[in-house]
């Protein structure tokens, strides 16, 4: 039979020397070069883990050690082994305790009396592999949770039917001023601002904006927000995950730009229509004055019209200069 050539690093926590040698035999039988770290008490395990950063594949834990035993031992061990799978080995068959310890987070529960090289090997292999997937899953969950909680934009999850807030992220808490607990006792409608209360003439929304809502912060400030949402299953019910984009500032800028544009249009209109009127008059008059056939007394009269038109033009240009200044308050 071929032995497993993979390199395994295994911690065996066992105070009974006989049991330890037996385990060692079993391991040697199936694995070519197992690296076995033997510790005889919880304390030794603790100090080994604290002083070594070596990657451990699996921990085999005897349930009755001189310094700790049973449930307490399991709990304390799981705290210090991190994500490493831990298999409990015991001499006492206790079915209900076995189930309980699996619930606490250990990977497997083996009876020493039933143990053989093959069952031990199978358990080690199986639990190492299964644990890898569990760790990946947890990391993934954590990553997605971070995406929500650490998003720079306010986000929340709310019930799809009654719109109760189920979870809110940090940005939402900072932006709206409500604590997470306050949010969870509210519905989305509580932060929506009732339009009918205000004078719409001061409304900076230039219309036709889809999915723009007015929201009211805890401090009473009203903001304009663009909302995007998706349906997700959340803890067994249908929910909506909502991303909020506060566009109040952008709208203010837009409004300012539109007002500036209006003034620029006015100036352009003045340029085209008002400025050219006296100018065209001056040009027409000069055409006539320069004509040799025009009588002198008419020319003198036309010259006075030239002067009047020049003054008018001067006035209009001053008006434009004033208008231009008003564009940038």
């Amino acid at each position: 039979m071929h032995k497993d050539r993979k390199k395994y690093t295994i911690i065996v926590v066992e105070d009974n020397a006989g049991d330890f040698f037996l385990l060692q035999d079993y391991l040697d039988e199936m694995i070519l070069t197992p690296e076995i770290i033997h510790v005889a008490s919880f304390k030794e395990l603790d100090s080994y883990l604290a002083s070594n950063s070596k990657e451990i594949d699996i921990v085999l834990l005897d349930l009755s050690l001189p310094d700790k035993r049973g449930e307490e031992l399991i709990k304390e061990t799981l705290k210090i082994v991190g994500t490493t799978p831990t298999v409990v080995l015991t001499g006492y068959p206790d079915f209900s305790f076995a189930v309980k310890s699996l619930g606490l987070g250990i990977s497997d529960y083996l009876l020493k009396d039933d143990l053989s090289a093959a069952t031990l090997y199978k358990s080690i292999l199986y639990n190492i592999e299964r644990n890898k997937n569990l760790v990946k899953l947890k990391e993934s969950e954590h990553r997605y949770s971070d995406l929500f909680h650490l998003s720079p934009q306010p986000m929340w999850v709310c019930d799809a039917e009654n719109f109760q807030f189920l979870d809110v992220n940090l940005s939402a808490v900072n932006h709206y001023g409500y604590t997470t607990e306050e949010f969870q006792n509210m519905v989305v409608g509580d932060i929506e601002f009732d339009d009918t209360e205000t004078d719409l003439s001061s409304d900076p929304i230039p219309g036709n904006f889809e999915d723009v809502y007015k929201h009211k912060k805890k401090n009473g400030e009203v903001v304009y927000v663009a909302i995007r949402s998706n349906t997700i299953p959340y803890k067994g019910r249908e929910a909506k995950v909502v991303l909020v984009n506060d566009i109040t500032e952008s709208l203010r800028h837009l409004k300012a730009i539109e007002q500036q544009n209006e003034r620029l249009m006015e100036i352009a209109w003045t340029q085209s229509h008002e400025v050219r009127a006296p100018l065209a008059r001056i040009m027409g008059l000069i055409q006539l004055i320069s004509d040799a056939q025009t009588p002198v007394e008419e020319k003198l009269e036309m010259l006075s019209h030239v002067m009047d038109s020049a003054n008018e033009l001067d006035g209009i240009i001053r008006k434009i200069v004033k208008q231009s200044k008003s564009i940038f308050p």
Partner: protein
Amino acid sequence: MSKQHVFFVDDDLIAIMILKKVLEKCDLHASSLSFKNGKEALDYFQSNYSSTDHYVIFLDINMPVMNGWEFLDALSAFTVPEKTTVFLVTSSVDEADIIRAKQYPFVSRFLSKPVSVATVNELKVMFND
């Protein structure tokens, strides 16, 4: 024999004076009437209109009370382009005004002020038929 009438519609009296002089230089000595805005011109035009006569109107765009566009809109109620020739005479050089002028069948030409002798000589043909 059909008569020809020449109207000037402009709130700028100097502009009318200049245009009249330019027409004289081109030997166009038609008797003419001047109006300060579209409304005055329209009132006169409507009550004295004769379908056998021909009308030439020099029309400014920007005027108080009734501007050139409004006047043009009102024209089609009682006359036809064959009987009425309109020259839009304006100080505007706005492209939008030029494009808009093309939408009116009454408007024969869009003239930017000042109207030169050369331009009027070009238009002469349209006067005497």
